[in-house]
């Protein structure tokens, strides 16, 4: 762990994007599962995800980042094709 001496005072974050490095998806009770057959890559899930848990590559939705997903289910609600289902962990 970082020494307290090397930490910026006052809980200041000196570089942007630091939240990517912190795993926050370990208290989920449901996980989203996408059916690639139904997905049309409309990006609704990516837009609505309150975290950064939807992985997009080359304009394609390719899955979820489980280290950040809290299992809120918003993606499943937002999906116009009902391609996402919430499965109990």
């Amino acid at each position, binding site marked *: 762990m970082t020494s307290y001496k090397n*930490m910026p005072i*006052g*809980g200041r974050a000196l570089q942007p994007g630091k939240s990517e490095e912190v795993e926050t998806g370990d208290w989920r009770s449901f996980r989203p599962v996408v059916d690639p057959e139904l997905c049309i890559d409309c990006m609704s899930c990516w837009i609505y995800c309150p975290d950064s848990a939807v992985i997009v590559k080359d304009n394609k939705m390719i899955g979820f980042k489980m280290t950040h997903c809290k299992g809120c289910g918003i993606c499943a609600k937002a999906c116009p094709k009902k391609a996402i289902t919430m499965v109990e962990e």
Partner: protein
Amino acid sequence: MADLAINGDSAIALAWKQIDPDVCAAYPITPQTIIVERFSDYVADGEVNTNFVCVESEHSALTLCTASSSAGARTFTATASQGLAYMWEMLPITSAMRTPVVMAVANRALSGPININNDHSDAMAARDCGWVMIFAENVQEAYDNAVMAPRIAEHHDVQLPIMTNIDGFILTHAVERMTPLDSKDVKSFVGDFKPLYPLLDWKNPVTHGVMDGPEYYYKHKYQMVEAMENAIKVTEKVFKDFKKISGREYRLVEEYMCDDAEFVAVVLGSSYGTMKAVVDELRAEGKKVGAIMPRLYRPWPDKHMTAALKGKKAVAVLDKHAPIGAYGALYADVCTSLIDMKDAPAAYNYIYGLGGKDATAKDFRTIFEDMLAGKAAKYTFMGVDE
């Protein structure tokens, strides 16, 4: 500058005018109101460049101060009693965000029962919030502390907010003779505010006030503990530098006639003056007594207090607040400084002056008489009619 006949609040406002802070949040509350009122005159008359913000509550006042200090602005405010209580939620946030806000507190009793007179229940309830706390005996010291406060708070080894306390009405409203400094001396003494990682540094974007997990929270608290400890040395240095421009010498723990004293009384604020008069009276009668005031209250000047109390027979600690169900806070602090002392003096706690109840020289004399006669008790709630 020529001497002035001035009350404590106006003296603080004068110091602020000479410092010319970037931002001042103002919400009126007796007995502090004169500070922001006088200061608003300076703003209206164009004598300062301060952004003067009239907020809708004390909670907003301190929130604004914390934010503007984060942005990189030297920020002042003032409050008292219920106002300080209303700020409470923000007090530990201001310190944890390491924003060196300067706040004058005109010490006043906390309601209830409803009371607007002087005691220390407001400051003492806020004493463990990570703020540096300094007390004044008279109007001169109220002014001097106001000049020194930003230097202590903004020092990069400290970076914590500071409360400059003065006794409500006794000092805030009473007119005393006071020697101010030249404005240019104040300006160069205080210097520029050099914030660490300010939000308005566009070239180096940072985030303030992030969520802290247990591991980081724990370390950030320890950083504050170290910073508070650093405030001891920094304050001593600031006192030393202040003597050069003012000729006035201050110590973290003030001692009066203590060298050969056997019985001493520890007291905070304006009562220290009364206590010194009582010491003079008893000294004239051949009694070996002395008075002590911890000018710096947070961080607690532990080693200095231990040194001041070494070799004494007994010490009376006067608390102008009453934690219901515990001893006075000042007494508890003094006792921690006696813990590792061999043949430590007996320590007695006296609660006095709550809600503006007069604390006279005659009252204080009885404390020494108790100790001299070996009749002092561990806890005495002074002057309650049976």
